[in-house]
């Protein structure tokens, strides 16, 4: 048996947004935690993030509730963590390019309004008055003032410091290589840097969760889905609310005919799926994002980047002349079961899985993590 280098109440596998938030809420309650990260904090999907916290893209139900609850939690997080996480609430805008999309959004947002989400309908004139940079062909939009943006890097630094303040430990460059078990309990997490003995083990490894599950012969229904993003040079304020396309929502929720743009048949942005345009506090434009199943390849591709640049430039023509300075890609945890995978899984009662939020990890992390921490601290899980 490998050497035991640390002992704790809860070992958390994964130093991304979900793992660190769980670590924070547990340690704030006085529990002893160790976060185990294979590379560096924020090196996976959290670090390849569009920074937008979206409630408006969700239909009424648990996901919307989690996003709304998290949005309220974000209001006080900077104070609570005593760190500037660059949380700003400029709202979100979902633009419509066709009459079908407008119709789909009328139904979609009416249901959201009925569920209590603040959403406003803007006609063509109001839309262009709100965001003059938009292309003339945009016929309308919906706006949700509750939606905000956060700097995920700053947020992780804040959580890292808070966990350490409470006495928790962060192990980086420590890939998990196996487990020690006794009966229906996982007793130790084995890493490249030694074993961590724990009463409860949380697997918040995002898209890599199935690989961790394999070590215990547990099947976790998650697939890596790649998202590529372009970052431009900082420019003067161009947009207020971040901009999304109604195409994805129209396609997903109403199965209406979706018009192809002229960008080719198997173009990753062909349906505008997940299109996002935002501007950071620094002024950089963030343009995204693809949704691709390419296994565990976290590289960028000319095909993906080209399609993002083409599509976003049709929405905001001024983007054409802005310089791209950086590109990134991350593997998001796509759930095969239609929603996040949260709770004890398999034969081990103290092995808790928390993943499967795909592109919504940051938006729902506070409420998700608080819920998980409550279950573990109360003894309901573990």
């Amino acid at each position, binding site marked *: 048996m490998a050497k035991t280098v640390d002992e704790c109440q809860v070992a958390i596998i994964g130093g991304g947004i979900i793992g660190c938030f769980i670590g924070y809420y547990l340690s704030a309650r006085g529990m002893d935690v160790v976060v185990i990260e294979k590379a560096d904090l924020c090196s996976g999907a959290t670090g390849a993030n569009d920074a937008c916290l979206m409630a408006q893209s969700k239909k009424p139900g648990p996901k919307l509730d989690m996003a709304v609850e998290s949005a309220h939690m974000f209001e006080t997080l900077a104070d609570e963590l005593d760190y500037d996480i660059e949380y700003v609430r400029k709202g979100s805008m979902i633009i419509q390019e066709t009459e079908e999309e407008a119709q789909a959004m009328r139904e979609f947002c009416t249901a959201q309004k009925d569920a209590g989400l603040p959403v406003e309908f803007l006609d063509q004139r109001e839309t262009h008055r709100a965001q003059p940079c938009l292309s003339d062909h945009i016929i309308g939009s919906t706006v949700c003032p509750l939606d905000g943006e956060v700097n995920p890097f700053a947020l992780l630094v804040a959580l890292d410091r808070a966990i350490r303040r409470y006495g928790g430990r962060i192990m980086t460059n420590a890939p998990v290589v196996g487990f020690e078990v006794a009966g229906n309990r996982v007793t130790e997490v084995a890493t490249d840097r030694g074993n961590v003995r724990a009463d409860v083990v949380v697997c918040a490894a995002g898209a890599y969760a199935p690989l961790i599950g394999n070590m215990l012969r547990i099947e976790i229904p998650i697939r890596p889905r790649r998202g590529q993003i372009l970052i431009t040079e900082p420019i003067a304020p161009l947009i207020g609310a971040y901009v999304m396309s109604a195409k994805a929502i129209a396609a997903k929720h109403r199965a209406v005919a979706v018009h192809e743009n002229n960008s*080719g048949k198997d173009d990753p942005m062909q349906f505008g799926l997940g299109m996002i345009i935002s501007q950071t506090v620094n002024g950089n434009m963030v343009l995204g994002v693809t949704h691709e199943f390419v296994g565990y390849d976290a590289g*960028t591709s000319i*095909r993906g980047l080209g399609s993002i640049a083409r599509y976003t430039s049709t929405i905001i023509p001024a983007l054409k002349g802005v310089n791209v300075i*950086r590109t990134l890609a991350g593997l998001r945890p796509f759930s095969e079961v239609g929603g996040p995978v949260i709770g004890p899984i398999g034969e081990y009662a103290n092995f808790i899985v928390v993943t499967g939020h795909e592109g919504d990890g940051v938006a729902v992390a506070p409420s998700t993590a608080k819920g998980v921490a409550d279950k573990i601290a109360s003894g309901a899980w573990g």
Partner: protein
Amino acid sequence: MSDSKESCLVCRCEELTEDEIRQAIREGCTTLTAIKRRTRAGMGLCQGGTCQRLILAILAQETGQDVAELVPDTSRFPVRPIRAELVGDLRDGEDS
């Protein structure tokens, strides 16, 4: 270490000092990429053109490693700033 060294500007684009880089390393950053994520060093217009070698030297010194042993930053398109319009001209069949 003298005061002037502590306030020496390492990343000009994002305005980070040598002291801030050393602080990030002391907080657990072990790679250039980790320092970049934590501090924004190398995230500006020049994308690390100036500061990358300086930060590697500091990292080597702080961790007692040789510069050649350090994990290089992830290299991705583009090498230098390129207009979004030109990125949009890139099509299938070309590899990054």
